[in-house]
């Protein structure tokens, strides 16, 4: 009897051993999770617990096949998704008009959910923009467009155009609705409210009096008219920082974050990180004054006071410049919950440190310290978004061991636990920068239905190991030789390309 029991025990142990070995062998010999159209399981690294769910990630290099010979530094990406038809998207980067220095700067357009992209030269700016962001609400029922863009034109004086296209697939140049000079870094957010597009453009407007330059341009009539509101209530060091970021919730709550510069010495800004709020879409008698700081009773909650932010308009973090990465995101179904991310000098020895904090009471109070494991060394280009189920997404790019590593992190409990996917890990020293910014002063993340969608820029070498979740190229590549080609088989130098991605929101 004892012998029989021992036999069964040995058989059970042997069976378990064989099963384990089989699983390990299958994993080892599994085909690479990369390549055209490939969707692979996550190479998930965790900040806390692991979410075991399989992940279907889409990652696409935006450069079209017919521009396979290009070697531009297509940096500083942005993304807009058509609210009514999320198959339609517009992306942008510092991509010049491919054929003419006098023709219009282009945008990338996808009508199939990001699988393919075309380049369409319809911005109002000649050749190439110096900044461009955009959004596509659908209050005016333009199902193939309704793109609202803020662009800067590169010229002796830098000019902001706020413009609109009613069909991003047409060849009609965008209609300029408002223009002015002496402003910096327009950042567009928009939402359709009562069949009207409400547009919020964060700008650093040097025309504002008394150096209170942090400004939000508000249009509640689809861009036909704009009103500019300074959202800085305090003394500044002559101006605020470049980044002014609005976030809009469907209930008409609008937040905006900015760097309130209190001192500036040329290499570092002593800055407050400020959040303002408006509960009526910026249309009330005192716009963006709903939040006041307890310390001075002035509008604008000081989430962080007098932090030191490095400013360098030269290669500093790898080949990238630093000085003004900032993001704010509001929960679309609970506008009381809002996340804020920024970078400063941070920890000793760091060049640039990211932080994320949260408020659950409409910006009145904030987490006293960074959310768990969101103090991130030597990183930039922070972008936050909140999905319909309350999951927060965090996109950032970190310089690590000589590589630019692009992360998308998701959490349903304010980063107590999280899923962290690496979208790209590419050499940071190639290609050599053509200009600044190298990757961009920002990248972008949005939530759309049950997906996070976003864009970032990276070295475009077609090396599958650089893209652990898989990647699709439209431009001609030879994966076996890890080289780009011009479509006729001739090699093309590595450059910076914009990449689109979508990741399912975790449950």
């Amino acid at each position, binding site marked *: 009897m004892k012998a029989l029991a021992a036999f069964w025990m040995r058989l059970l142990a042997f069976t378990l051993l064989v099963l384990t070995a089989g699983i390990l062998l299958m994993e080892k010999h599994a085909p690479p999770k990369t390549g055209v159209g490939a969707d692979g399981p996550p190479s998930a690294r965790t900040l806390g617990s692991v979410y075991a769910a399989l992940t279907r990630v889409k990652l696409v290099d935006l450069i*079209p*096949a*017919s*521009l*396979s*010979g*290009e*070697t*531009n530094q297509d940096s*500083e990406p942005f993304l807009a998704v058509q609210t009514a038809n999320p198959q339609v998207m517009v992306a942008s980067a*510092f991509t010049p*008009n*491919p*054929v*003419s220095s006098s*023709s219009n700067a282009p945008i990338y*357009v996808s*009508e*199939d959910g990001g699988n*393919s*992209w*075309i*380049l*369409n*030269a319809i911005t109002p700016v000649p050749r*190439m923009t*110096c900044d461009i962001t955009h959004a596509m609400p659908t209050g005016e029922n333009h199902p193939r467009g309704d793109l609202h863009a803020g662009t*800067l034109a*590169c010229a*002796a*004086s*830098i000019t902001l155009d706020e413009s609109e296209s009613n069909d991003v*697939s*047409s*060849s009609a140049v965008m209609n300029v609705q408002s223009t002015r000079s*002496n402003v*910096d*870094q327009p950042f567009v957010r928009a939402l359709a409210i009562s069949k009207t597009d409400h547009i919020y453009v964060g700008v*650093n407007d*040097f025309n504002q009096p008394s150096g209170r330059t942090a400004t939000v341009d508000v249009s509640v009539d689809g861009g036909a008219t704009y009103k500019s509101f300074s959202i800085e209530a305090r003394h500044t060091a*002559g*101006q605020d920082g*470049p980044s002014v970021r609005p976030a809009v919730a469907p209930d008409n709550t609008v937040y905006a974050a900015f760097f309130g510069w209190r001192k*500036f010495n040329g290499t570092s800004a002593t800055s407050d990180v400020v959040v303002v709020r408006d509960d009526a879409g910026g249309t009330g008698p005192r716009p963006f004054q709903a939040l006041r700081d307890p310390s001075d009773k002035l509008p604008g909650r000081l989430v962080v006071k007098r932090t030191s932010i490095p*400013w360098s*308009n*030269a290669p500093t973090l790898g080949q990238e*410049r630093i*000085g*003004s990465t900032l993001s704010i995101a509001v929960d679309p179904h609970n506008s009381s919950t809002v996340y804020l991310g920024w970078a400063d000098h941070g920890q000793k020895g760091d060049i640039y440190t990211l932080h994320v904090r949260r408020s659950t009471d409409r910006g009145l109070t904030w987490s006293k310290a960074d959310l768990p494991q969101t103090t991130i060394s030597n990183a930039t280009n922070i972008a936050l978004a909140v999905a319909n189920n309350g999951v927060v997404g965090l996109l950032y790019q970190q310089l690590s061991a000589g590589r630019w590593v692009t992360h998308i992190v998701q959490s349903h409990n304010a980063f107590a636990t999280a899923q962290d996917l690496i979208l790209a890990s590419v050499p940071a020293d190639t290609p050599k*920068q053509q*200009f*600044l*910014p190298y990757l961009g*002063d920002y990248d972008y993340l949005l939530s759309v239905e049950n997906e996070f969608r976003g864009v970032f820029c990276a070295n475009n070498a077609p090396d599958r190991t650089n893209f652990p979740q898989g990647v699709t190229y*439209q431009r*001609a590549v030879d994966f076996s030789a890890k080289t780009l080609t*011009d*479509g*006729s088989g001739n090699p093309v130098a590595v450059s910076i390309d914009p990449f689109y991605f979508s990741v399912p929101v975790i449950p």
Partner: protein
Amino acid sequence: MNSSLSFLAGILSTVLLVPSAARFLEGQNNQAALAKQSSIVFSGTVSQLGTVSFAGVPQSPQTIVVRVDFVLKKPAAVSLKKGDNVTVEVKDPSAFQPGTQATFYTEGWIFGSGVAVKELGHDFNPGGGAPAEGSPTGQPALAQTPKQISDQDLQNRVASSDLVVIGRITDVHRWTIPKSAAARYHVSEHSADWHEAVLQIKSILKGTKPKGNRMAVRFPLSRDVAWVNSPKFQKQQEGIFLLKKDQVSGDPTASVGGYQVDAYTCLKSGDWLPLSDEARIRSLLKN
């Protein structure tokens, strides 16, 4: 009699041939102008009417699909070769039938899995896929868009310049913003980082020579995307400088050798040229 016949023959040939020759030359000039104006020139065979060659291009009665036989001019970035199908938005669709062979002078329109272009003009190729005989587009030099500034661009730049100077840079220093202009300066990623070069004048190709032999030229040293294509000067750099009076930096004057003089700027790519372009500029100035 013979002389009368010769005279009559001369009159006749003048009447018949001169207009033809003029028309031929005019046609040649038009083709040359079209080729210059075009970013993409190719010879091809029309395969379909009223359709497009790839998704994302708006289809209309004016869009036709042309199979490429020869690529005569294109930017290096554009992938286009024999056998590719190109969507052409033509001016007059009734001029084309499937099988029509022509040289298309075009500007780029939409770039996706294929190329879509807008027609600026065309020549029919009666003998086949090759460009029409004598077409200026047949020249190998048009195989890719030259990177150097075109004569037309250069002529425009010279025309809009206040001064065109041959000279040498003797000093470069950061320009200190005067108090009078400080109010207009703010900190931005797009800040120009103005520098000032002292230019020793060798000769003046356009404009009135300033007092003395030296002048101040302001330029942005910034590597920001807004300024990266502006010329960046170094000591001992020689060349041809296309200059405008400074209306950008906020202070229209500069101090050179103890004298207050007009300050100039040199901002755009191509506003500095090597000395080898001197003859070209002199020639353009005569026209």
